[in-house]
């Protein structure tokens, strides 16, 4: 990778043909050498774990970002991709981190690490700009967006208030904010997530940076918005002749935007090269595994491949003949025939929230309107929709964590929504929920043992605590955790392991229906595959029925027999999953499906 700057042939962005030359490297005035826009050489970053020990999280990473190019840095959490980008921006915490003395960070041939703090700061925002994952938390909620963009212009471009405002308007127009004249005085909370991210982008490009670092800019956004933002970034890059360092975990997205790809794992670069080559002819076993373990729209294997199918524990590739069977696994068929036993029959379910509007009046917000479906025993019903579609409210209302406004949910002929709390207690055992965020859904002050024993104690399962402990141990083994986990606290586990603990907690009650509310959305791709495999195994073994709520259409396609599409609280389409993905009837479904990144396929 170190010789990328002299690599030929060069990928020429289409738009540049008018210019006639796309110089990916430039000649340094002082030394006369060719240099790329950004050179990262042997970058090593350590973090302080306690008073004396330092842990290296980035272990000698080298890559170049040429001029006018999008480079994607791909990896799962803990791969060091964000840390590398923060090192470039000079945003690492001073007290608890350090960059190895042998590391080289050069921007346009200038040594970034030799600069003073003040010089670095003047460069940040002006030459190198960054956009972050969460636009909601990256914007200051008490200032209007106009003020916040204007601040950048006043600091770096020495504009006065009037000039800054004019320029801000232009920028807002450029990033595609509707009616920028009124939106310039809006507060971040008055905008949608997509608009907020556009504002962040406007702020980042305000000073015409040469390098834009985008750290997971679309991860928090809906799939249709994601497409718009990615298109916007690409359009701006071409128009402004800047380079983009695009950090993401999503390989499919990389295929849509990147010219070059760097795949990282555990602080080391596993593979790098041109996007087409890395995505279609991956050389490294880890890249291959990453590409395989993400459910795709056109196949549905019996079991999703996981990283450990391709890699040994030490990170080396497994021999070729072992992985052959995994690459072409048998396919699973899904869908309902119509004679399945129905376990849950939801009729005209509605849920409204009331907001206080003025002194006496209330405003009704209909989160779920008139939704009806039937869940077949031992099958999975996928519920998809974008944020605000009411899919999570639907799940929580069925669990009675929200009070339903109208409608029925018949479980063995009994309406569980009309029961008293005491009557419902008996049904709580049989209908359980797994939440999205495995970090938030386990009480941090409980050991795993306490977490697993509590539901059994509450429902009187098992004769005594000894018997319950035994059951809990068996369940831990069933979900693939060591029994030693019993004595640990949740924070000692990774996200995937925590989600397994949450699944084990549900299983202690031996439920018949499991509501999975975005249960794999917060997990890394490889962990996601493991948890999906586990859920599938449990369904095969215990005949569980799943309500699988997700915004991720590929995951739903993989796991669900039937799919229900929701938009703004209304049911848009309900069909067998193969049917729905092949022939979407409703325009909204068609729009959703077309927005899925298809970079890899």
């Amino acid at each position: 990778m170190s010789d990328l700057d002299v690599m030929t042939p060069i990928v020429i962005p289409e738009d540049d043909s008018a210019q006639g030359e796309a110089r990916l490297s430039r000649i340094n005035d002082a030394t006369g050498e060719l240099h790329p826009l950004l050179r990262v050489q042997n970058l090593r970053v350590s973090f302080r774990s306690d008073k004396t020990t330092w842990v290296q999280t980035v272990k000698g990473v080298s890559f170049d970002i040429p001029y006018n190019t999008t480079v994607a840095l791909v990896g799962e959490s803990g791969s060091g991709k964000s840390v590398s980008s923060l090192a470039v921006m000079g945003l690492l915490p001073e007290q608890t981190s350090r960059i190895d003395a042998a590391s080289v960070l050069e921007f346009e041939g200038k040594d970034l690490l030799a600069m003073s703090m003040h010089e670095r700061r003047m460069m940040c925002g002006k030459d190198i700009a960054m956009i972050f994952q969460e636009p909601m938390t990256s914007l200051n909620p008490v200032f209007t967006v106009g003020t916040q963009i204007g601040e950048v212009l006043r600091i770096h471009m020495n504009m006065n208030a009037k000039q800054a405002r004019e320029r801000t308007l232009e920028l807002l127009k450029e990033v595609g904010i509707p009616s920028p004249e009124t939106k310039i005085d809006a507060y971040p909370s008055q905008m949608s997530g997509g608009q907020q991210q556009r504002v962040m982008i406007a702020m980042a490009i305000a000073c015409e940076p040469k390098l834009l670092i985008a750290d997971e800019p679309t991860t928090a956004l809906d799939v249709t918005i994601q497409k718009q933002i990615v298109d916007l970034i690409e359009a701006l890059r071409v128009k402004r002749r800047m380079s983009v360092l695009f950090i993401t975990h999503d390989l499919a997205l990389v295929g849509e935007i990147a010219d070059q790809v760097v795949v990282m794992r555990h602080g080391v670069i596993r593979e790098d090269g041109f996007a087409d080559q890395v995505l279609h002819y991956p050389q490294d076993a880890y890249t291959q595994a990453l590409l395989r373990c993400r459910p795709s729209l056109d196949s549905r294997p019996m079991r999703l491949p996981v990283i450990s199918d391709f890699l040994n524990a030490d990170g080396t590739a497994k021999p070729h003949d072992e992985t052959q069977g995994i690459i072409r696994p048998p396919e699973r068929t899904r869908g309902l025939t119509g004679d399945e036993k129905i376990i849950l029959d939801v009729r005209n379910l509605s849920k409204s929230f009331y907001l206080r509007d003025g002194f006496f009046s209330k405003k009704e917000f209909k989160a779920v309107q008139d939704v009806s479906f039937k869940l077949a025993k031992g099958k999975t019903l996928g519920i998809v929709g974008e944020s605000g579609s009411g899919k999570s409210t639907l799940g929580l209302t069925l669990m009675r964590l929200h009070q339903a406004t109208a409608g029925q949910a018949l479980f063995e002929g009994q309406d569980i929504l009309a029961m008293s709390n005491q009557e419902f207690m008996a049904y709580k055992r049989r209908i359980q929920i797994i939440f999205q965020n495995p970090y938030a859904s386990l009480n941090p002050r409980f050991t795993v043992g306490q977490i697993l024993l509590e539901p059994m104690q509450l429902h009187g399962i098992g004769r005594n605590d000894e018997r319950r402990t035994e059951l809990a141990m068996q369940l831990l083994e069933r979900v693939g955790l060591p029994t030693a986990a019993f004595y640990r606290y949740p924070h000692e586990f990774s996200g995937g392991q925590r989600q397994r603990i949450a699944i084990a907690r549900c299983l202690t009650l031996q439920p018949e229906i499991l509501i999975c509310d975005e249960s794999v959305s917060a997990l890394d791709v490889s962990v996601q595959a493991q948890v999906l495999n586990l859920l599938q195994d449990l369904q095969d073994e215990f005949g569980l029925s799943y309500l699988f709520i997700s915004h991720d259409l590929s995951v739903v396609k993989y796991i669900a027999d039937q799919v229900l599409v929701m938009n703004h609280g209304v049911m848009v389409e309900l069909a067998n999953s193969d049917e729905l993905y092949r022939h979407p009837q409703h325009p909204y479904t068609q729009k959703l499906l077309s927005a899925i990144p298809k970079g890899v396929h």
Partner: protein
Amino acid sequence: MSTLSTTPASLAHTASVRSHSLWALAWRRLRADRVAMLSLAVVVAFLIMLLLSATGVIAKHWNDDVGVNYAPPTLIGPDTEDDVAASQAAAAKDTTPIDYYGVTDPLAADMTAIHTELAKSSVEKTRVRQTTLPFGADKWGRDIIQKTIKGSETSITVGLVAALLSVILGTLLGAVSGYFGGWIDDALNWFYSIFTSIPYLLLILAVAAVLQQKGILSIVLILSLTGWTGTYRLIRAEYMKHKAREYVLAADAIGASHMRKMFVHIFPNVSHVALVQMSLMVVNFIKSEVILSFLGFGVPIGVVSWGSMLNEAKNELILGHWWQMMAASVAMAVLVTAFSLFTDALRDALDPKLKS
């Protein structure tokens, strides 16, 4: 796995579950923390001192005038001659005969008897009264060290018990208010607003007037009944934040009751707020006891406390007698510092996420 063969194993498991409980782990983490152990030792030493003094093992004779008035600490040495001469002159003035204009004093014989009797004992006493004491003496010649030890009884009891009570009260109300919300929250908030709108001293006077008796118990009640407001507000905010967290929803989903969610699930996660409040409150209440004593709602005259010592020190400082104030302040500062360091360390130790 047969039941028989697994029983001993599972027994062993249960045993180790118990030994791995939150408190056992917290204790292990505390023990590794040197500052925590030191501050704990100081707090425990104060408590032992309190117990010994309450049972009369030490500082039983704190009320005896063992030194001369305002006897300075030994390190400084006895007072200058002028003062001694002045006090002798004052003593001599007392014996100046009074002119009775020829009338015989009917009580003269009795008085002489009393005087000789008194002289006997006072001779004994003046012989014992020392010119210096290890940490000086107060206005009546009482040993400051003994007085401070005796004073700790009132102050620590008032500080700790009142702080504990007010934190419990604030936590309970805050938990109910934040967790249930709705009209319960509204009602409690109204109560809180009314409560805080009354000037603090007036409130204290009102509670004192209702209780109608002096003593440690009423000070504790006055302070805890008026001091819960801050804790209430903080705990309420924490509960509002936590009740929507997924782990509480998950507890709801498995069928945990309201009480269980409030105190078994949420409370350990917000306990740090209560602990920090508690350590702040102990300091405040020891000081408040001074104000109460000053207003006449504090401890009765015959009882000593650090607060009343500081109250006396006000006038002594002008005369240059700093030792009483010094003793009370040092004792208070050491206890309060040790106590806050300890609660801080306890907070960290109770949080399993922080590594020791």
